[in-house]
């Protein structure tokens, strides 16, 4: 009597979790913008046997955005998932993997992300700041003011903007714009930049030094700007940031 087919894999089986871990690491390792994503739920798994010790695995994953920018060397396990009231962003991914002789590798992946609906947030938290479009004029003005403020006060390298990662606006009790953006050190000190900023270029990849800034601009009832920039230090490509060896512009 032919052997009964193996029971279908459950989404919480160790094999499924191992496949999901490989998939999430691949997704973060091949993303060049935004934030790292963490696994929230394995929606579905399908295994197509191709032969002895040779399976194709289709995974449907539910991910959540973390607070770690994609350039951050922080291991994913140490990256905090953005909470619901911080206006969470969800990623839905379909991933195709090959499991050959017990070794998992990703053949293809397709993801799309979307923020939670503003209505959901406001229902639970009426005064919570909401995500703002990254090309909103207040957002652009806040990023520019924050970077200029940092460069005017630092004794370190002059920083240039790489990308705006996230922006939120709050209207009560004060009108506040909060922004997060990725930066990179240039070959100038902030002092040298005052004389000839055009000469300040991003450092070559083998010396690159990326960083991350957060800033909050209160415009009403009083004007107040708070800026915090942290450089990661020079990084060599690692499993957490393998793409550093590729162009990140």
């Amino acid at each position: 009597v032919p052997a009964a087919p193996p029971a279908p894999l459950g989404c919480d089986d160790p094999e499924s979790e191992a496949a999901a871990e490989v998939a999430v690491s691949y997704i973060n390792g091949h993303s060049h913008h935004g934030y790292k994503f963490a696994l929230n739920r394995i929606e579905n798994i399908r295994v197509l046997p191709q032969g002895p010790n040779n399976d194709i695995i289709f995974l449907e994953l539910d991910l959540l955005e973390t607070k770690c920018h994609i350039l951050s060397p922080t291991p994913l396990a140490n990256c905090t998932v953005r909470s619901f009231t911080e206006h969470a962003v969800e990623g839905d991914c379909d991933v195709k993997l090959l499991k050959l002789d017990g070794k998992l590798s990703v053949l293809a992946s397709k993801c799309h992300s979307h923020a939670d609906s503003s209505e959901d947030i406001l229902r639970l938290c009426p005064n919570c700041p909401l995500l703002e479009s990254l090309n909103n004029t207040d957002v652009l003005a806040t990023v520019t003011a924050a970077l200029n403020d940092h460069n005017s006060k630092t004794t370190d390298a002059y920083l240039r903007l790489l990308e705006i990662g996230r922006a939120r606006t709050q209207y009560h009790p004060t009108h506040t714009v909060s922004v997060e953006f990725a930066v990179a050190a240039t070959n100038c000190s902030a002092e040298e930049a005052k004389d000839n900023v055009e000469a300040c270029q991003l450092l070559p990849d083998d010396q690159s030094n990326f960083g991350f800034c957060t800033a909050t601009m209160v415009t009403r009832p009083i004007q107040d700007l708070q800026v915090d920039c942290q450089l990661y230090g020079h990084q060599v490509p690692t499993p957490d940031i393998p793409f550093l060896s590729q162009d990140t512009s």
Partner: protein
Amino acid sequence: SVAKRAVAEVAQHDKVPRPVGFVPPPPPCPGRIRHFKI
């Protein structure tokens, strides 16, 4: 003469008795939620 019994009756008699406290296994998918559901 053969009298056809009502389905419910057949179903009742043929249903495999389940032990008291039987809890059906959770569906294999979707899996557990690790943080929160949007």
